[in-house]
């Protein structure tokens, strides 16, 4: 599960760090650090973070491999498309 954050757009609201703390972390008051290749187990948390970002700065790609490794194939509302690649 690959992701990138547009840090020009990011304004340090930290919603992602609350919702997916294993993938996103604040560094100081408003810098964001993240793991650009998140574990598939974090999928739901990451999708919530993508949806919650007030400035829509997170680009996420779910690969076919991630889909195959998914434990529960239920979709999270508002994110994801079957072919992969959700903004």
């Amino acid at each position, binding site marked *: 599960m690959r*992701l990138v954050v*547009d840090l020009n757009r*990011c304004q*340090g609201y930290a919603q992602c760090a609350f919702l997916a703390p294993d993938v996103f972390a604040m*560094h100081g008051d*408003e810098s964001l*650090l993240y793991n*650009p290749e998140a574990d598939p187990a974090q999928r739901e948390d990451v999708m919530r973070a993508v949806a919650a970002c007030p400035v829509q700065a997170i680009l996420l790609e779910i690969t076919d491999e991630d889909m195959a490794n998914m434990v529960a194939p239920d979709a999270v509302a508002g994110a994801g498309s079957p072919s992969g690649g959700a903004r």
Partner: protein
Amino acid sequence: MTSTGTHDGSLERLKREGRIVVVGASLAGLRAAETMREKGFAGSLTMIGDEPYEPYDRPPLSKQVLLGNAVADHTALPRRRAIEAEWRLGVPATGLDMAARRVELGNGDAVEYDRLLIATGVRARPWPNAEEGALKGVFVLRTRDDGEGLQRALAAGPRRVLVIGAGFTGSEIASACRERGLDVTVAERGDAPLVGALGGVIGAVAAEMHRENGVDLRTGVMVTSLEGDPSGRVRAAHFSDGSTVEADVVVVSLGAQRNTEWLSGSGLGAGPRGIACDAGCRAFDIRGIVTDDIYVAGDVARSPHALFGYQFLSLEHWGNAVAQADTAAHNMLSASADRRPHLWVPAFWSSQFGVNIKSVGVPPMGTEILITQGSLAERRFAAAYGYQGRLIAAVTFDNCRWLPFYEQQIEATAPFPPPFSTVDRRPEGSKPLPADFPDPSVPTHGPTITLSGYSPADRKMTFTPGR
């Protein structure tokens, strides 16, 4: 505009069965390819890259990766969509035949195109002495392999790291070293870190950040030579002030060089300053005539910006690569009346010593600076840069939510000093200061020769060593 871009249908043919080649398989190249497919390009798409990896993201290499929070080979960029390209990775482009519309590759192959996008970017400026630069323990930081190697060297617990150059990358490396508890010396030729990008007023704040975090910061000095031990491993560096620093890891962080050598002799207007192009990303040839089938995007491009006096700007900014790639891709598939200019307002970020630094506009164009919110002492502020009575740029330290406001002001050519008063107290007062950028006539990289005198008999050549 109608969908028929051209009278003869050639544009429709290009979209249906044309050949597009992208040289440079990094951020700009990938995003351009995605945009082309989004716009309905159904022809053949070839992506050429000299590294063996699919496009990856570089900003984490000097931050998360060095801190050990992410792995260098896990930085592949997410895709916005499938691009169904033919990938030629691990093989550099070595030549361009503009007349035959053909790109030559390092393995002897050639690829023909109807439209070409050049996004070859930049590479790290190497240590000027190749023999010293090849010593074990000497690094640059630009590629995934560089990030991986440096991360491993830091994890091994060197006794001291020397960072040569205190620009954004050098400062981020120093910050990561301190966070890992490593002793680090930073050598900067200028008077302060970040001085070339943000000026002396902000540079002084950056210098305090280094020193408070335990960096041994040496300014106004150059590293004159690196010394290895008998096994070929770096052990010390000699400085222009006569001092010596012992270090077992040295990171050369002296900026970047544009990857244009492969175009020499092609007739394209490419050189050490990049590839000049018009605001629609079309490359100029050496005669200054714009091409109509060769486009440029990303760090290697140099294009005029209407908002900044049509100055040719080359921007090594992540956001510029994304925006310019999008514009180039759009224009490559559009008739002339449908093309659009690249009008992105320059913006970048850095994260060092736990402080979020962001900027919009072109700070080095500024001659004056005013702290408009917060204070330098608290290291949480917004500063505006002025140029001939106009707001030209802004920088924030841990105050990034104000940046979109300044961006709008810059776009609207708002006056400087800003007429708005804030609710903030401003300990520094409301009178602008000189922004204190280095004199552009002072050489920044090594020694220079200057000429003086008028008649040929009078001509005097003066050698100015790097200080």
